[in-house]
């Protein structure tokens, strides 16, 4: 009895020790990995609130000696020192707000279009059976992996004829190439998780297909629609190669296009903090999505990648 008791005690002690060691290891690795993942972004944010004097020293000042918001003011009020002071930096900074507007316009319209068209198609693939259904689904799946670089060259040649060059409508069409297959696939996987009895009982109760769709399916499929919308918005907002080829002027330039432009225009490093500020602004929509819709983002990612 005694030995047994002691051995159990020992076991518990080592078990607890092991638990503690494990806990410490988890926290240490947690801190290291979080730093590796988040520190670069944190530095971008710090840069955007720094005077260039703090950045252009070595080693740089991790905490700005005099934090400023001038870099953001340069973007929001580019002509605040009067129009007579129009340096190159002002000229580019003045493009940032219109570019953000362009990005928002395109991303929002692509998102709306995808929620409606992708949602309806996803419902059809999940609930109805028709000829070549699996072939169409396979077609969507393969279309998802068409590299953008393989599309922009034909776009470049075709859009000139169609008048879609340097046009937000051209970007709208182009973005659908990667957004639509994904939207259909996410919606299809989502509808497939909803029990069939739900809409079938609605059909039995005398609803038409259409009524069953918008009266029964739409309300329960909000998470799927959110995942589709969020994913489409994020991909559209972040897209760079397509605007690089299609957009020529501020009429259709997106924020992702202005940032490299901004970096290239300046050989002088004095403008870095302003570029950093525009980078932070470009990250705000993705960060809001991550902060508030993380769950849907992850579920969209899983539906797009693993769910069959």
């Amino acid at each position, binding site marked *: 009895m005694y030995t047994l008791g002691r051995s159990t005690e020992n076991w518990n002690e080592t078990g607890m020790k092991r638990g503690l060691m494990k806990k410490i290891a988890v926290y240490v690795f947690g801190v290291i990995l979080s730093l590796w993942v*988040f520190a670069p972004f944190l530095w971008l944010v710090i840069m955007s609130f720094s005077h260039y004097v703090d950045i252009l020293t070595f*080693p740089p000042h991790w905490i700005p000696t005099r934090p400023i918001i001038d870099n953001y003011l340069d973007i929001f009020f580019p002509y605040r020192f009067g129009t007579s002071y129009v340096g190159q930096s002002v000229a580019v900074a003045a493009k940032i707000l219109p570019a953000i507007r362009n990005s928002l316009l395109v991303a929002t319209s692509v998102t709306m279009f995808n929620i409606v068209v992708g949602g309806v198609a996803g419902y059809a693939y999940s609930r109805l059976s028709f*000829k070549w259904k699996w072939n169409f689904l396979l077609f969507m799946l393969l279309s*998802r*992996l*068409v590299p953008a670089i393989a599309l922009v060259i*034909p776009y470049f040649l075709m859009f000139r004829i169609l008048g879609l060059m340097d046009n937000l409508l051209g970007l709208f069409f182009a973005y659908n190439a990667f957004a*639509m297959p994904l939207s259909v696939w996410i919606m299809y996987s989502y509808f497939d998780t909803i029990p069939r009895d739900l809409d079938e009982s609605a059909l039995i109760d005398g609803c038409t297909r259409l009524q069953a769709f918008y009266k029964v399916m739409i309300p329960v499929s909000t998470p799927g629609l959110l995942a589709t919308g969020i994913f489409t918005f994020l991909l559209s907002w972040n897209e*760079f190669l397509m605007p690089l080829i299609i957009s020529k002027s501020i009429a259709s330039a997106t924020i992702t296009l202005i940032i490299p432009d901004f970096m290239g225009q300046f050989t002088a490093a004095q403008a870095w903090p302003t570029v950093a500020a525009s980078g932070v602004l470009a990250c705000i929509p993705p960060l809001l999505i991550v902060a508030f819709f993380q769950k849907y983002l992850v579920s969209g990612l899983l539906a797009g990648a693993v769910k*069959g």
Partner: protein
Amino acid sequence: MRNGKRIPKGLVLSLPAILTVFSVSTFPLLFSFVMSFYDMNVVARRTTFVGLGNYVTIFSDPEFLRSFGLTAYYAAFTLGAALMLGLGYALLLNERFLGRRIVMTLTIVPWSIPMVVTGAMWRWILHPEYGALDGLLNQLGLISGHINYFPVGGLGCLTTVATVQVWRDTPLACILFLAALQAVPKELFDASEVDGANTFQRFRLITLPWLRPAFLVVVILLTVNAFIQYDLIYMLTQGGPGFDTTIMSWQIYTVSFRKFQYTVGMAFAWILAAITFVLSYVYVRSLYGKLE
């Protein structure tokens, strides 16, 4: 009678999506396939049929073979590193600890922000004069002076770009692994503990086999990501120094939009597309096998 002749409702409902994808993706792709057999003289505005000429040009060009090799290296490096980091990270996030939710949210940040911002950010961090990383390493006393992250010649420069890609792709791998880990039935672990399996055995015999489908997904997604990578090369090196970081996508871009050999570019892009198609075919076959 009427029903028999009607177009199936499912086809009608999915037609807008099919037509959209066909017109913005499939049709341009087919167009570029046809055009890849032509030579287009932009100056003389003349298009002549050259058969496989563009493909012969590409395959007899040492630049192409080099860009293919560099792409393969880029993919292998990102894949290896992001797989290990992603798995480690997922195992960590699968534990219970204080602040787990915040860490998880932060994890997704690198993957969610625009890649041009990622590129700009890392260009500053790795800057030869004012680089933040060098500054930090100096303050920690690990180095004195500067490290050249963009060396000329060899694979050094491409490795730097690939490391940034790893930074961006690790969250993706982590999320996919984590989802798979959370699906492992707890009973399996409890049973194995009763049977006296240690941590390592449990990892090898339960966790790893359970993660196999997720592994496959991550491998394919990361490989395709690496093969079509363009933004980071544009932001960090523009294919240089020399041709050190000229991976396939960058080669396609320069051939098309700097040398204006659009049809060669399209042929090249088709080779890249074919590679991603083969990869996605493997993906489809192993995961969506039931879609026959």
